[in-house]
């Protein structure tokens, strides 16, 4: 039987018999087991659920820092420029904190805790993506600004990362300590205060940014990084306790 004959036979059969309607298709499909998503699939899926506005604000902050450094005349005191620019860095932390606190703010925690990838895993994934994106923003900024600072990329990077890590630690501590929705406001206050301190430093304590203190800055940077890791792990591990501490009992 050649192809043409086969096609004709199929067409004749279709004419002779009416195809029965599908019955209980959904019930049949629901009984079929399917492979669950892996951790990496889940992590990449979550990228799509981080709000577009979070990425856009991060980019806007990067552009602002870049423009500020480029078009302001900081030549007299070189370090004043980097301090002023670094005053914007806590805002980057705030944007991430707001994203992390969405679950708390909108009361989704209980539902998220009961799923395969529970709230702790979700927080870990979100923290990682936001951390990576912030690091990219800071390192790219350092790359663009390094020619303005003696000591180049590393020193510029450290001056940007230290306020970032400091605000991160402060925000993580606040997330751990404070209840439910008002936490966002505490984090905003903390970020604003750090920014203000940096602006004051840019006018009155530029000497802190002299090259003789570079090692101290590097040490603080490492210390804050370790502290942030410890605090993040603690928060993820105690997710259940933190959640119920702020709820009423029934």
């Amino acid at each position: 039987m050649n192809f043409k004959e086969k096609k004709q036979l199929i067409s004749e059969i279709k004419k002779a018999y009416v195809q029965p309607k599908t019955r209980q298709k959904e019930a049949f499909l629901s009984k079929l087991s399917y492979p669950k998503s892996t951790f990496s699939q889940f992590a990449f899926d979550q990228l799509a659920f981080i709000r577009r506005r979070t990425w856009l604000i991060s980019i806007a902050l990067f552009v602002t820092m870049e423009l500020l450094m480029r078009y302001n005349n900081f030549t007299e005191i070189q370090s004043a420029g980097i301090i002023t620019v670094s005053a914007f860095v806590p805002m980057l932390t705030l944007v991430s904190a707001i994203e992390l606190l969405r679950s708390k703010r909108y009361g989704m925690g209980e539902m998220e805790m009961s799923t395969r990838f529970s709230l702790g895993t979700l927080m870990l994934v979100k923290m990682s993506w936001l951390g990576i994106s912030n690091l990219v923003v800071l390192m790219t900024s350092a790359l663009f600004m390094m020619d303005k600072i003696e000591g180049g990329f590393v020193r510029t990077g450290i001056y940007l990362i230290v306020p970032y890590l400091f605000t991160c630690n402060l925000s993580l501590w606040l997330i751990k300590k404070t209840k439910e929705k008002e936490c966002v406001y505490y984090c905003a206050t903390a970020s604003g205060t750090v920014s203000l301190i940096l602006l004051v430093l840019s006018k009155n304590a530029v000497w802190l940014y002299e090259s003789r203190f570079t090692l101290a800055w590097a040490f603080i940077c490492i210390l804050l990084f370790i502290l942030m890791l410890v605090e993040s792990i603690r928060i993820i591990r105690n997710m259940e306790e933190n959640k119920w501490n702020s709820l009423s009992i029934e």
Partner: protein
Amino acid sequence: MELVIDRVTKQFGNKIAVDNLSITLTQGVYGLLGANGAGKTTLMRMMCGIMTPTSGMIQYNGIDVKSEDYRDDLGYLPQDFGYYPDFTAIEFLLYMSSLKGIPTMRAKDKIAELLDNVNLKSVAKKKIKTYSGGMKQRLGIAQALLNNPKILILDEPTGGLDPKERVKFRNIISELGKDRVVLLSTHIVSDVEYIAGNIIVMKEGRLIHQGARTEILKLIEGKVWECVVSQAEADKLMKQYPIINMRNEKNGVLLRLISSNIPDKKALLMDASLEDLYLYYFSDQVIEKEGK
């Protein structure tokens, strides 16, 4: 299929929310009844593995409820829950599917089916912040069913649903209860009466009754009376017996009450309902009388 709760206690400071509770749930629909503060929500949270008991253990087919395998088989609708307001129903369900480990392609088919089941297909692309309370509740029910759970725990699922939606919900749950464990708590006793074959009654953290609906009703069978009396007689009866219901009629006051003996010569013996039992145990008035 067996969910075993073995001598579970949950204590918050000095308050014992759940007190040494043991129960085994197998296939079927269970209705959890109890007044506010009886410990229903705490028990449900512990059954979902999201709250750790102070003592005792909860296992499903020998697996601890804290495990990932258990959460794969679990569907949970909390009592008070929120939504990310900027999400549409589809985005929300895709988000929950991702957390439940359901691959996107599979999730899309399931979401379409569930949105149809809960009557949200036409508004699936609208933001959740534009939804009414009942629509949000239906979306919550849909998310609990995404992973085709073998254990379904629903805390006050019918709150906010209109009568038509409640009937549809009851039908869905009755269907689901055929091959899985469904536990639902609600203050709407009629919902439990219609769909739950088994009733669990909790009071002050303790399990006070558990069994088939017909068995539980035997406790007050032959004790539920109705009579129409004058206001003065009604006042007198109210002091003597636990009152289930009182309604003003043209010719006097209609009282529904619990009594082992005939309370009034005009009283008629009525069929006991679950609502009678619930009100008998949990009405403040009754509790006061029991105290006296």
